[in-house]
């Protein structure tokens, strides 16, 4: 084994990493039903949002406060920082029917809410 034997690993590694990332970034975006939530005074409006179950929806969170907030939900596996006065796009679902709490991590005492997924996917899609 020569001293240089390890050098052929570097291009191979680079390729693997690049390949991995290209694989991850296959774009498949269709039009999603859209829902909006506002943050005002460290509170969510509405604090309870009903969405159709079993399909993916686009949630737009509009932070009207001057302070940043982090939309966080362990149940939804979602986490996103939203700067003051900014809108954030968060895709959620498809969810099984049920209740999924979320909260504002920076102000968890007041900023609490929940997503209610209802098994009415068909009627919601018809209304679009």
């Amino acid at each position: 084994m020569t001293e240089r034997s390890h050098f052929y690993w570097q291009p191979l590694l680079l390729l693997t990493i690049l390949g991995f990332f290209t694989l991850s970034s296959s774009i498949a975006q269709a039009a999603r039903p859209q829902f909006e939530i506002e943050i005002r005074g460290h509170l969510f409006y509405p604090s309870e949002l009903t969405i159709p179950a079993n399909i993916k929806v686009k949630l737009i969170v509009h932070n009207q406060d001057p302070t940043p907030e982090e939309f966080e939900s362990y149940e939804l596996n979602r986490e996103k920082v939203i700067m003051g006065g900014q809108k954030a796009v968060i895709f959620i679902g498809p969810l099984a029917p049920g209740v999924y709490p979320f909260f504002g991590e920076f102000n968890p005492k007041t900023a609490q809410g929940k997503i209610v997924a209802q098994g009415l996917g068909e009627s919601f899609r018809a209304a679009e």
Partner: protein
Amino acid sequence: MLLNSVIIILREVLEAALLLSILMAMTRFLQLRFRWLFFALMVGFSGAIFYGTQLAAISSAYEGVGQELLNAVLQTLAYGLLIIITVLMIVNHYKVGISESLLQVAMATAVAATVTHEGSEIFIYLSALRYQPEAFSSVLCGALLGVGIGFSIGALLYYLLLSFPRRHALLVTCVLLTLVGGAMYLQVARELIQADWLPAEAPLWDTSWLLPEDSITGQLLYALIGYEATPSPLEVFIYLVSMLLMAVLLLITWFVHRKNKVPHVVQLAG
């Protein structure tokens, strides 16, 4: 307010502190200098402040998923660097002095990427104090406690690793870094699912009744091995593949380089 800021800061610090302590222990084992750490932290802190101040613009890029994509890029970079680091670590173990500078650059870049990612959130959280001067002392106090706890856990891991004999330390750090690598790539998957670049699916299982993600143990395991109570099949698949890929590359490197081991006596005579 105080407890909340402890938790927020601790969550972010913990991930960086665990990576940092493993790499610092490695630096000691390989008898390298700690200078890379200085550069890594300087670049990382600057990056965090830049990311934090530019977040509004980053977020609205790519149809509102710029934040997810940039995080995914930073985590992919860190994952790739972890592979390079562990491979060079094994090579160095068997033949001292090979690609030491590349190893240090890789460690510095990995730490800088992680600090940028985790630090930006801390910066944003603390920047809110501008609007809430009445919360200043309790948030700052909580932040210091969070940093303190995070670094204490990091220090604990560092000294635990140093207590291993050199031969076992290599295996232990490789296993730990492979777990950290899997956790990092799992986060990439999560970001891309959130951005709708990867399909979302129903969770494969739900262990939140057994170990909630917001418990202390849950948070610690999240930082170290990427614990998630309700992972989707795709996430589990990506997690396992990213760890398997890393483990296979490390095994091949070990297999190729273990023959290079020169007995100490011969080395002296030569």
